[in-house]
């Protein structure tokens, strides 16, 4: 049954004799598409506001004088449109092509777009075989554009799609149409190289071959490429990508407009980072330690060796002497088989995964307050939100595509944005989400907790509260209110530098929102007290009555591509597949039924605990799958000692990482480009991963290795292929059946909320509602150092991607220009960075968006600087945090 408002807003028109019924406001070109009439066009793109510059989409519309551009004309009731059926329109299109081709070099034989070029296609459709243009063609001098992107401006049709995309979608504004008239060309600034986010969007959106990728230049003709639709392996956003391969080589990646959660948009990692899989350093055969070195062996030998050693250790010390750690980069199927292997073949719940590094704080908080382990909102809700609060997330760099949803909401749909984030608004070569904020709380990385409390306090001060809940959950309200009232604005101001007025204003905006979403990033999730802060943000939603409202909710941003899936597959010792707790009798029963074996009774243990146990000799063997704890944790965590103490360390890896170098056995696994399975993105959407190239060397999918090991250990878990695993998972966990176009977000669970507001909140309310003790006001020469994610890398993994290294090849300690000049430092200087934990050398970089008093270093290059990082573990969630410290700088040498 159509609701009246919908029928009222529907418009009927005819296009080339076909009847179209479309919502009011639809453009004629889109209405035409819907009834199968393809109007040729260059400058129109559904993502961009119409510019109507190419004049290719002209149509005849009855009762309108002259031809109209269908890309800029909205439909009207009873409109009669003629496209292909209008001789006049066809004639006009022909002439537009004639005009474009006049100055076009017609170098199709050497153009990477040849074969998938709009200009070729339309020319084929419309133009005569000869041109009457006999004059000199304009020729632009070839100029170096950038390391990854190439321009060939002679081919440009000046539709400005690239420029508009860079501005309207990415908010980067790095491309400039330079000059006027026919001499206009797309450039960067002056004669400088392009300096931007390198999202590849301009390449993808160019209808001709004017902007192409340098990484694959001249290597292919499009019709030689084999397409494989899959999912990006770099971050939690889970973008749809299409691998384009030729003879088993990865040639390029693109993404299809209209497909995937990213709707065709990508970031630099997704677009240019695909060479990791083909890196020459890839491990191609199993390795067994032979003194200081490794020797390459056959799979049988390696598996037998590992199986036997594990059996021996299990026999000697019991199953809990063996632990396992798996990466959130692995597929759901990998994680599922892994944990099953650990639980039933080894017989232990000593399982952990990279969810532990931060995302778990968000998941556990959601579980505790609203009874879900997934977001109760989706990307679509973010786009539709009217109010967004971003906390501790430099979203462009951590979750760029979720960031685009935020930009869409703010820039195009007028949503209000509040940001609490260390980075300050500043225009640079990367988009900066706080530039778009109405209210920005530029607080130090250590003061997020105080800022969140400030917002809560303002909400209470101004009574922006849910009256109904107030009645139902009096003590919850009263306790929190009392705690907040005990906090002084002076103290909050002292930590955050923001006064009560600012909080009051932001609280008003937050309170007025009807569709309010809070996005939480690594600044909160990975930091000390991250769990408490996330809880408090859920309280904020609850108190203001927004937690259960449709379109509202909390969205913790997953860092790795399958962090969410790793959790849901039981990649956490204390959690069973499906996200229920290890103690859940019903779930245990169902699992042991299905697996045909009992589940171990011991408690699960986390990575920090395993480190402790290894140090104490209680953990003897560790199976590390795709993880590299030596590179993820600082020495202060004790990981070095722990690994040294192990009797047996096995790594399943693509490369000989720091951790793998310590291993007794290294088993070559395959990358996401070579395997099938599924990833679950940050919003809980499960998507298909498909192999695009053959397995590299002798590498194997991780699940296959566990399966083979189980056979060796006389407890076979055999699977013919990934599909079988998937089936088993889906049978077991109905919640994983959401493969489809869009995720259905989880619903907050009323019982869980009731439990939380009646009693459960009391457990830690006093601690959560206290200002954390932070270091005494920084002595003048100390800086707060934050080690964080860069847009151009993902973990240490992407450092094997040659494209990304072209943009960022090393770490620098980034400072605000004034901070640097005050310290007599300039770009490229070398400084000694030191604190109580030691000192390291680092080059200086300058960035406007770094606040004064803060230094930022990309975690991907932290092998040295990591030594300065302290390490703490959250008592409740066991999440380690080690990303912030205080350092002093001393100039060693000039640039």
């Amino acid at each position, binding site marked *: 049954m159509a609701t009246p408002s919908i029928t009222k807003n529907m418009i009927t028109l005819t296009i080339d004799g076909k009847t179209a019924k479309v919502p009011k406001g639809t453009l004629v070109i889109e209405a035409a598409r819907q009834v199968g009439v393809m109007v040729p066009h260059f400058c129109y793109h559904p993502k961009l506001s119409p*510019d*109507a510059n190419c004049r290719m989409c002209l149509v005849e519309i009855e009762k309108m004088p002259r*031809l109209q551009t269908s890309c800029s004309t909205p439909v009207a009731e009873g409109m009669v449109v003629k496209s292909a059926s209008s001789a006049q329109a066809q004639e006009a299109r022909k002439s537009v092509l004639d*005009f*474009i081709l*006049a100055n076009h070099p017609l170098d199709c034989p050497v153009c990477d777009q040849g074969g998938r070029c709009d200009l070729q296609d339309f020319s084929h459709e419309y133009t005569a075989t000869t041109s009457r243009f*006999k004059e*000199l063609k304009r020729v632009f001098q070839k100029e170096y554009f950038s390391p990854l992107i190439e321009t060939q401006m002679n081919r440009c049709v000046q539709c400005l799609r690239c420029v508009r995309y860079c501005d309207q979608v990415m908010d980067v504004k790095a491309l400039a149409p330079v000059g006027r*008239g*026919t001499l206009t060309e797309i450039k960067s600034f002056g004669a400088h190289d392009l300096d931007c986010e390198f999202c590849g969007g301009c390449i993808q959106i160019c209808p001709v071959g004017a902007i192409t990728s340098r990484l694959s230049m001249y290597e292919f003709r499009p019709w030689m490429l084999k397409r494989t639709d899959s999912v990006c392996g770099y971050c939690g956003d889970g973008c749809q990508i299409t691998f384009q391969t030729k003879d088993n080589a990865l040639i390029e990646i693109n993404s299809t407009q209209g497909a995937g959660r990213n709707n065709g948009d990508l970031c630099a990692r997704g677009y240019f980072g695909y060479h990791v899989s083909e890196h020459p350093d890839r491990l191609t055969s199993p390795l067994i330690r032979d003194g200081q070195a490794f020797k390459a062996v056959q799979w049988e030998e390696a598996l037998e060796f590992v199986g036997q050693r594990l059996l021996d250790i299990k026999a000697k010390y019991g199953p809990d002497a063996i632990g396992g750690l798996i990466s959130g980069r692995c597929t759901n199927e990998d994680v599922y088989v892994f944990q099953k292997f650990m639980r039933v073949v080894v017989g232990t719940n000593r399982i952990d995964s990279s969810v532990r590094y931060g995302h778990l704080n968000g998941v556990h908080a959601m579980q505790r307050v609203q009874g879900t382990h997934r977001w109760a909102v989706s990307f679509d809700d973010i786009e539709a939100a009217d109010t967004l609060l971003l906390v501790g997330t430099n979203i462009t760099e951590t979750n760029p595509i979720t960031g685009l949803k935020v930009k869409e909401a703010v820039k195009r749909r007028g949503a209000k944005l509040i940001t609490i984030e260390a980075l300050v608004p500043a225009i640079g070569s990367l988009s900066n989400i706080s530039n778009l904020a109405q209210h920005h709380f530029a607080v130090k990385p250590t003061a997020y907790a105080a800022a969140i409390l400030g917002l809560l306090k303002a909400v209470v001060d101004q009574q922006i509260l849910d009256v109904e809940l107030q009645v139902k959950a009096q003590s919850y309200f009263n306790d929190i209110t009392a705690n907040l009232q005990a906090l002084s604005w002076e103290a909050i101001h002292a930590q955050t530098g923001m006064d009560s007025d600012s909080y009051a204003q932001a609280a008003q905006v937050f309170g007025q929102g009807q569709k309010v979403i809070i996005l939480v990033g690594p600044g909160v999730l990975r930091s000390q007290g991250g769990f408490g802060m996330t809880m408090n943000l859920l309280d904020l939603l609850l108190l203001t009555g927004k937690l259960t409202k449709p379109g509202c909710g909390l969205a913790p941003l997953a860092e790795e591509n399958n962090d969410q899936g790793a959790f849901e597959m039981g990649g956490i010792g204390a959690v069973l597949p499906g996200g229920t707790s290890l103690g859940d009798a019903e779930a245990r029963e169902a699992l042991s039924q299905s697996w045909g074996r009992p589940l171990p009774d011991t408690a699960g243990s986390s990575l920090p605990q395993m480190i402790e146990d290894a140090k104490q000799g209680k953990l003897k063997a560790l199976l590390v799958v795709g993880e590299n704890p030596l590179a993820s944790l600082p020495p202060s965590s004790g990981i070095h000692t722990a690994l040294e103490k192990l009797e047996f360390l096995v790594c399943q890896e693509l490369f000989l990482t720091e951790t793998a170098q310590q291993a007794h056995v290294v088993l070559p696994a395959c990358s996401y480009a070579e395997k099938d399975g599924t990833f679950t993105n940050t919003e809980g959407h499960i998507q298909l991963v498909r192999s695009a190239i053959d397995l590299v060397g002798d590498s194997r999918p991780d699940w296959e290795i566990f399966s083979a090991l189980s056979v060796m250990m006389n407890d076979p878990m055999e699977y013919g292929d990934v599909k079988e695993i998937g089936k088993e998972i889906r049978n077991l966990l109905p919640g994983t059946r959401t493969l489809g176009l869009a995720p259905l977000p989880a619903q907050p669970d009323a019982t869980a909320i009731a439990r939380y507001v009646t009693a459960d909140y009391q457990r830690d309310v006093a601690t959560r509602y206290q200002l954390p003790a932070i270091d005494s006001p920084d002595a003048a020469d100390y800086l707060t150092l934050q080690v964080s994610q860069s847009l151009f890398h993902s973990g240490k993994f992407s450092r094997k991607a040659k494209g990304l290294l072209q943009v960022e090849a090393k770490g620098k300690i980034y400072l605000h220009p004034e901070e640097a000049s005050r310290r007599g430092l300039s770009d490229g200087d070398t400084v000694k960075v030191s604190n109580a934990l030691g000192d390291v050398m680092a080059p200086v970089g300058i960035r406007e968006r770094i606040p004064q008093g803060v230094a930022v270093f990309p975690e991907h290059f932290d092998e040295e600087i990591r030594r300065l990082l302290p390490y703490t573990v959250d008592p409740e969630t066991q999440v380690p945090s080690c990303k912030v410290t205080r350092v002093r700088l001393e100039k060693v040498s000039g640039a």
Partner: protein
Amino acid sequence: MSQYEKILLKNMEQPGYTGSLAEYEQAGGYQAFRKVVKDMQPDQVIEEVKKSGLRGRGGAGFPTGVKWGFIPKDHPGPKYLCCNADESEPGTFKDRQLMERDPHQMLEGMAITCFAIGAETAYIYIRGEFRLGASILEKAIHEANAGGYLGENVLGSGRTIKVYVHAGAGAYICGEETALLESLEGKRGMPRFKPPFPATHGLYQKPTVVNNVETMANIPHIINRGGQWFAGIGSPPKSCGTRVFCLSGHVKRPGNYEVPMGIPFREFIYDIGGGMRSDKPIKAFIPGGASAPFLTPEHLDVKMDFEAVAMAGSMLGSGGVTVMEEGTSMVWAALRLMEFFYHESCGKCTPCREGSSWLVQTIQRIWNKQGRDGDIELLSDLCKNIAGRTVCAFGEAEVGPIQSTIKYFRHEYEALICEAQATMPRNKEIPMLTL
């Protein structure tokens, strides 16, 4: 000289008149604005202007009162007035005189307009080259602010009317009203497609009126003497009032002349402009700026009003009349104008951008005696494919000179091509494959 009553040029033609506020006031200046503020409602002002039949003097000739009437009345946010002082149409130089010699006349018009449409802020978009004009206007605005005519609480009415001068930087297209708005927003001056029209989505997407300098200058007189009076001047009902026509080219007395619309070109060129400057007879004239198609001596009796000129196949446009004597090559004249249009095409629309470069190269070739058979047809075809297929009216403008010179002086093109073919045949192209 001209026996017609001057309206716009009256003050400045008084000996010693400098255009200062004091002198303007002495000549009756700002009485209209006082009247508007004291005795009139915005709607009444708009009505009066509608009644006057005033049509825009910038080129398109849109009825001014009607344009004002499109501004939404109850729009909550700001509204803007932009005075188009970009005057870049070759052959036109009247706005410069109106601004430099009697700036308060247009400022008063602007103040009244702001009152009528409910705008608090107005910008004068003046072409960047007019440095002197800009400084004169700045000074006049300063005076008017001090005199209480502009600024806060104008004439004690509680209303604010702020006027600012905004200088362009060399781009003819910024005279097109939407390009002007883009430029005023600090962007490349590329026209916007319409609808939406500036009246609802103009400067900063707010309701905006764009009016030419001369249009503005007429307003105080309409208010002072009534729409009725104005509608009786010139060639009613469609072409009311006087216009300041600009005369240039091969005439004895080039310059700006204010005459009622509807006098014949012959009178304007010969009686007022003193006729041809040498004994050579007139060969052709442009009736309304570079965008207007050429006319020939047989059109000398056409009346200088919107309809008559349109009937004759051209347009009154910006009011720039350029006269060419016998002996002037029409191919050359078209080429000079085409070079201008090629240089000024903003590059947004494919037909205009590519067409202008194709056209200019082709005419250049013909002029340089390298024409080919078929070039004339090619030119006509290109023109046909540009006009009516672009975002702004520049597309029509740029083809006018070519189409009209081909229409009236085709033999000159043919002669050049013939000569080229005779001296250096160029029709031997690479043979075409025929199946």
